[in-house]
């Protein structure tokens, strides 16, 4: 005979199991390899072909020529879809995906990032926020 409470044993068993959720701000989940997070721009590699600009579905990227063979990039990360098409389109591996996903902010303008041409003696450029 069919009786109600089919899931009861499962529910009781769960009492002795660890919770399925994480205590988020304190414990963070590690993102998988190749996770499509924030896009990083390696300024030295850019040749200014602007293919990323043309392919971006959300008009996030703006490549600016500042001197001969020197290019800077401006990213409007608040519009980014994180599809990483720019990373795939780039012929020189200038763009890369990072596992950074915690981008929530109260100030929208802080998501507008400009990668400046002169790095501080490091290979990777540090994003600097342009204050207007």
């Amino acid at each position, binding site marked *: 005979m*069919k009786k*109600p409470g089919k*899931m009861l044993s499962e529910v009781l068993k769960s009492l002795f199991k660890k919770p399925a959720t994480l205590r988020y701000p304190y414990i963070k989940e590690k*993102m*998988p390899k190749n996770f499509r997070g924030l896009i990083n721009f390696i300024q030295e590699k850019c040749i200014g072909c602007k293919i990323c600009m043309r*392919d*971006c*579905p959300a008009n996030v990227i703006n490549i600016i020529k500042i001197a001969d063979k020197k290019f800077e990039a401006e990213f409007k990360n608040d519009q980014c879809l994180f599809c990483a*098409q720019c990373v795939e389109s780039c012929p020189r591996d200038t763009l890369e995906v990072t596992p950074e996903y915690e981008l929530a902010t109260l100030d929208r303008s802080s998501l507008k990032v400009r990668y400046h041409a002169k790095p501080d003696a490091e290979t990777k450029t540090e994003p600097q926020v342009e204050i207007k």
Partner: protein
Amino acid sequence: MAKVTIPIGPQHPALKEPACFTITLSGEQITEVDMRLGYNHRGVEKACEERTYLQDIYLLERVCGICSHAHSSAFVQAVEEIAALEVPKRGLYIRTIIGELERIHSHLLWLGVAGHEIGFDTLLMYSWRDREVVMELLARISGNRVNYAMNTFGGVRRDLTPDLCAEILAAVDILEERTKYYIGVVMEEVTLIQRLSGVGYLSHEDAVARGAVGPTGRASEIASDTRKDDPYAAYPYLDFHTVTDNHCDVYGRALVRVGELMQTYKILRQLVQELPDGPIVVKAPRKIPAGEALSRYEAPRGEDVYYVKANGTDKPERVKVRAPTLANLASVAKMMENNYLADVPIILAAIDPCFSCTDRMIETLNMDSRAGRLTDFRQLRQFSINWYKKRGLDFTALNKKLILKQDS
């Protein structure tokens, strides 16, 4: 008995998205249903015409959050047909693997939502916990939990490593065991059977007449499945069968969905074990030659139809999206007839509705008479010009400039 008409929506706790159902009641029984959509119109089709084909993939992927791969695949298939691109077999297999994993996560989501709508939240919690297995797997393969961005013209963007293949098989084993448990719950849990049996009855004849698709149609014994009827991607090489049911009610729809999950595991095992070697993508041109194509794809909710017209440039001339919910909405009015008001949420949830995916047009209604009005493009343009004029913006000079530019 006096008839009472009550509105459900546009904003209502029972609805996940805005839609308006005007329900006429006789006592507690529904006698008539009138529905109105158009609260979620996002102008996706028009936006497609202003972007390049490559950008459109990501735009159309966002038509639906749950069946995102279905929408992008259907679009990509249509464009590949126009451009006569031969997709490598490995690319087709990977595309199908993602599609089937998406089906698992959509069906498990539906099972949880259906449980929630009938007050069986235990089922919601457990089925969503198990859904995490497939969500994490999708994140490992594609780089994100939703909006996988796997499709591109001529194939897929990411390859599967042997490690990932092993992970898929391991996850399928876990999920299969869990699904067997849920099948047990659906078949044996007496509260669930009594709550869902006979609710939202849609006879086979009505389902055919109203063009029900997907699990909704299959639960009314319509053995239609695009994967079988018009095989695309890797489906011609696969062995599986279409799950149908003769209950014709919400209970039948639940049985079809859990039954389909078992078929999906069978398909996934075949796909991973027979995954061919070779390239995953062929190079696609940026400009697609002129032509048109209609593409069909079996999304988790039913048949998804895309029509694409190309004019030889890098932007499509027309993209038409027919989401599966639109095909099933005609059946909803019939399903609700003679049911109780309290059954409205579960009947609606049983078609797994997605109103945002469906909305392709808006209708202007006169506030007083509630009569609809058709507006052609010229009138609409004049209306917008007057609307801006009233607010102090005049485009006359700009218009003249544009016309002069076009003439010269």
